[in-house]
């Protein structure tokens, strides 16, 4: 059995006391500052499953800043970086580190919606400017919208809604939806349902499995028994890889066509291989857009980072562009908060994805593209919905 000590001696108290004193010293040291540079806080995942996305966003963001001479509104920039590990439990503390300890002027992040929700709360409580370059939780530009919160990516609703329209246009009458039962999945499916059922389609069943489980067999068996015209599914990352492969292995690929938002096939084609061929998805970006801006962006990105950009890099890039526009309007004077926000609200961004503006709730109004998997690319084959804005239900802006 383990030995149990009695109350520890003098030494242990000394250790605890020393820790408190040390923390106190840190605290006092941290108080004295004289900011001239713009403090930009980056709170993104740099480890874990979403590390690649965190890096892509950071690269895109920094590229936009570099193209503007490395400055915001004429001022130099100081970056403060926190790895949020896509962990919602640590999110309030991580956000606090940047806002209260490092006193950032702007907070940029993140990928995971749960983390972003916590960040949005802390940003609202402290009135810090927040730009979200990915997390799609509808709420953030819905009931939780605020003047100081912006998003340059999407709401989970947008691609879903767009695909609903596509499904109607392609003559589908019945559908089964299948996703992880968490906010992102539910919101995506709701977007699809809204468009599909408004046009006369019927969702005969909505299946969901707990996040992040990946044992799909029982559900695939059920889908086969239900025999709908199509299946709408939202999965991402490892789950998407497995799902698409399982779907094909169960023979459903040939009998019941699979559709979903772009995340089903973005960044996963290498691993999915043949199983993904021909799948149609909707997203605000895709391969082969070939607009002039996209070409220059892609070339610049490849030159700077030696890898191809993806939708996440674009979102980071546009976050940078948004801030550049805002800061230019106030010539870097962050005390002119109202003007800064107005400038960002009215910015017309020349994005690699196409022309982009922001809705009243500060979410992108953008074209949703229809893409098809061809080889290792999600090729854009058309526009599903032009200039789609999220309805921002519950937002009081």
């Amino acid at each position, binding site marked *: 059995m383990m030995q149990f000590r009695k109350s520890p001696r003098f030494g242990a108290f000394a250790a605890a006391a020393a820790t408190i004193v040390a923390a106190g010293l840190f605290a006092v040291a941290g108080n004295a500052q004289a900011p001239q540079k713009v403090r930009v806080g980056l709170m993104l995942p740099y480890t874990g499953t979403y590390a690649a996305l965190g890096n892509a966003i950071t690269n895109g963001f920094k590229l936009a800043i570099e193209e503007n001479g490395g400055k915001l509104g004429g001022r130099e920039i100081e970056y403060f970086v926190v790895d949020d590990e896509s*962990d919602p439990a640590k999110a309030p503390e991580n956000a606090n580190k940047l806002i209260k300890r490092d006193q950032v002027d702007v907070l940029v992040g993140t990928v995971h919606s749960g983390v972003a929700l916590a960040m949005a709360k802390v940003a609202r409580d402290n009135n810090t400017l927040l730009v979200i370059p990915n997390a799609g939780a509808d709420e953030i530009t819905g009931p939780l919208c605020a003047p100081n919160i912006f998003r340059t990516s999407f709401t989970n609703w947008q691609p879903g809604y767009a695909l609903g329209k596509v499904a109607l246009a392609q003559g589908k009458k019945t559908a089964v939806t299948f996703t992880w039962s968490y906010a992102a999945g539910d919101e995506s499916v709701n977007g699809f349902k809204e468009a599909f059922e408004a046009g006369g389609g019927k969702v005969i069943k909505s299946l969901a499995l707990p996040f992040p489980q990946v044992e799909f067999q029982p559900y695939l068996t059920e889908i086969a028994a239900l025999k709908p015209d199509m299946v709408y599914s939202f999965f991402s990352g490892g789950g998407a890889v497995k799902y698409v492969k399982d779907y094909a292995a169960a023979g459903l690929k040939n009998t019941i066509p699979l559709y979903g938002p772009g995340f089903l096939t973005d960044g996963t084609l290498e691993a999915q291989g043949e199983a993904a061929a021909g799948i149609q998805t909707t997203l605000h970006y895709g391969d082969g857009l070939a607009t002039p801006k996209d070409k220059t962006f892609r070339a610049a990105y490849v030159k700077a980072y030696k890898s191809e950009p993806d939708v996440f890099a674009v979102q980071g890039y546009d976050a940078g562009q948004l801030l550049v526009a805002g800061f230019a309007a106030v010539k870097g004077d962050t005390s002119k908060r109202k003007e800064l926000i107005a400038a960002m609200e009215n910015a017309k961004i020349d994005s690699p994805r196409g022309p982009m503006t922001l809705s009243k709730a500060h979410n992108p109004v953008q074209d949703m593209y229809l893409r098809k998997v061809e080889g290792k690319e999600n090729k854009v084959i058309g526009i599903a919905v032009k200039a789609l804005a999220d309805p921002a239900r519950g937002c009081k802006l």
Partner: protein
Amino acid sequence: MTRRRIALAVAVLLLALFPLTGSAFYTELVTKVMILAIFALSLDLLVGYTGLVSFGHAAYYGVGAYVLGLMAPKYEAANLWLTLPVAIAVAGIAALAVGAFVVRVKGIYFIMVTLAFAQMFYFVFHDTAFGRGSDGISMNFKPTAAIGAFVPFDLANATHVYYFVFVLLALVFVFLRLLLRSTFGRALQGIRSNEHRMRSLGFPVYLYKLASFGIAGALAGLAGYLYALQFGFVNPELLSWHQSGNVLLMLILGGQGSLIGAVVGAFAFVAMEEIYSAVTTHWQLLLGATIIALVIFLPGGLASVAQRFQRKLIGGPPNE
């Protein structure tokens, strides 16, 4: 004895004066550590003094936090004096319910079963509509401490929260100290050393263990409530087994079987996390390696380091 008393008094004084440094961020950080200290103390009762190693203690911590999250109204502040007792009670009841099952077994089995039940709670909050899902619950307002028209302190103020938690930590500490000196507490320690003998002496061992489990759960619920109060945000990861593992780690850092050890362990754990994550993004590697090294080379925790150091300095084994 006196030397220890002085050291304890100095530590308490430093802790009481800390908010005067004026940094909101660090005041909140030490508040968080004190909350974790309450959590560690609650587990110490179970592991250090009753000898029941639970790997699912985070479940009751999370339950306490979620009580506030679920009770908090959307458009106004919850009342502290209503929600706090409810959180403690619900966490205690949950612990008694699980305890009724698990206290019947011992050793490896106990560890595994407590882990499995904690996972069950985790999934209830993570996957069911009742728990509101994996993104957690955000509270728009901090609870209010108002009793009628009188508002003794403002929980939206970080310094007030700091002292509120400080007082609670002191109360929990004193409560446990008294509990452990009572017959009940002595019996628990007897059960830890030799269960059969206690049983043959006529003690209803099952009931004592169950009571210990329940009290530990209730106190963990208190800590969880305070966490939710401080951050205004709860999420299922509060019940994850990583959280259960971390609190066990705090005990081994501080040296289990001593109340001060639990508090020291909480400080040491957070310090370690902060330092490691400042050094590298792969800080979990350092954390894992430290844990392994600690287990192999330092089974007595940091307290044993302090003891050996003191023995070298002063000579002779100090006695209780």
